[in-house]
């Protein structure tokens, strides 16, 4: 289940709709300090169903909506769509039945300012959060404890108390 593309709109510093194509094995993202690289990682976590604002470096979930800048005003909503390649039959088998025949799987999450409630879609069909997490769980994409290594997280693995490190093993178990 490789990622084919990521579309970000109104999410953190990506106020304008941005499309990132992911059709390579090793993709590098570079740029100056504070330009938005880690925000791309947050966007991927968020569209995969992240429920903790703290895990997204915010205080409340609404913090992911573009909050305005010198030249732009606050965005009305944040929306991220991640599109997976579903052409591998082995990968498709791990999906819920209704999604197995699609060549692609596009998961969308939307949060409106002031609203507080998140909307989720799979291939443009509105679904509930648990449908999204079921999809990710089955395909192994959801194992983010060790497949998403945030900035500074390596240092946490090093300095973690032994009891806290077991999460890495648990998630892979």
């Amino acid at each position, binding site marked *: *289940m*490789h*990622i084919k593309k990521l579309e970000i709109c109104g999410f*953190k*510093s*990506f*106020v304008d709709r*941005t*499309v*990132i*194509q*992911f059709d*390579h*094995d*090793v*993709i*590098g*993202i*570079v*740029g*100056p300090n*504070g*330009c*938005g*690289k*880690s*925000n*791309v*990682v947050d966007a991927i976590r968020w569209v995969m169903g992240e429920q903790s604002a703290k895990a997204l470096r915010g205080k409340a979930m609404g913090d992911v909506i573009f909050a*305005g*800048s*010198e*030249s*732009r005003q606050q965005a009305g909503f944040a929306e991220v769509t991640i599109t997976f390649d579903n052409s591998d039959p082995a*990968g498709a088998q791990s999906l819920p039945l209704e999604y197995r025949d699609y060549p692609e799987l596009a998961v969308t999450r939307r949060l409106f300012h002031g609203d507080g409630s998140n909307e989720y879609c799979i291939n443009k069909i509105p679904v509930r959060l648990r449908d999204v997490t079921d999809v990710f769980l089955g*395909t*192994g*994409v959801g*194992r983010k404890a*060790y*497949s*998403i*290594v*945030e*900035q500074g997280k*390596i*240092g946490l*693995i*090093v*300095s973690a*108390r*032994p*009891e806290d*490190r*077991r999460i*890495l*093993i*648990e998630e*892979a*178990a």
Partner: protein
Amino acid sequence: SERLFEHAFTGINRRFTELFPKMFRGGKAELRLTNPNDMLETGIEILAQPPGKRLGHIELMSGGEKAFTAVSLLFAIFRYKPSPFCILDEVDAPLDDANIDRYVEAIRAMTDRSQFIIITHSKRTMQAVDVLYGVTMQEPGVSKLVGVRVNEAAARSEHKRANPA
């Protein structure tokens, strides 16, 4: 459950003890359970010995050695149970040039099963990826994707190395 954890621990530890000497070009390392009789509560200790040095807990190593040991552990977990993709955000910041080479080499060896997204400031890492996306903030506070550079040479030579004719 207990058995799942034990199976994962054993499988990961085996890969970690294999991978560490490959990454460090020598030395040895292992994971140890703080309480082997209690799979539900036990903690995990990391013991490592870089080549030519003495065995000790991970906290006794240098800054870069610690980071590289943690990276080896992460990759061992990844080999035990690969995810379709893996995101690494500035993991190479404390690494010297030789360790960055080994870092990207280890990543390349896992691209048969997974896709890697690497965020970096290191020119050395940038030369080893297949495609490079730049993010800028020309307009303050507004992120914009600019410039894509495809590393044809790197991708092709790595592909040949992974798939000898």
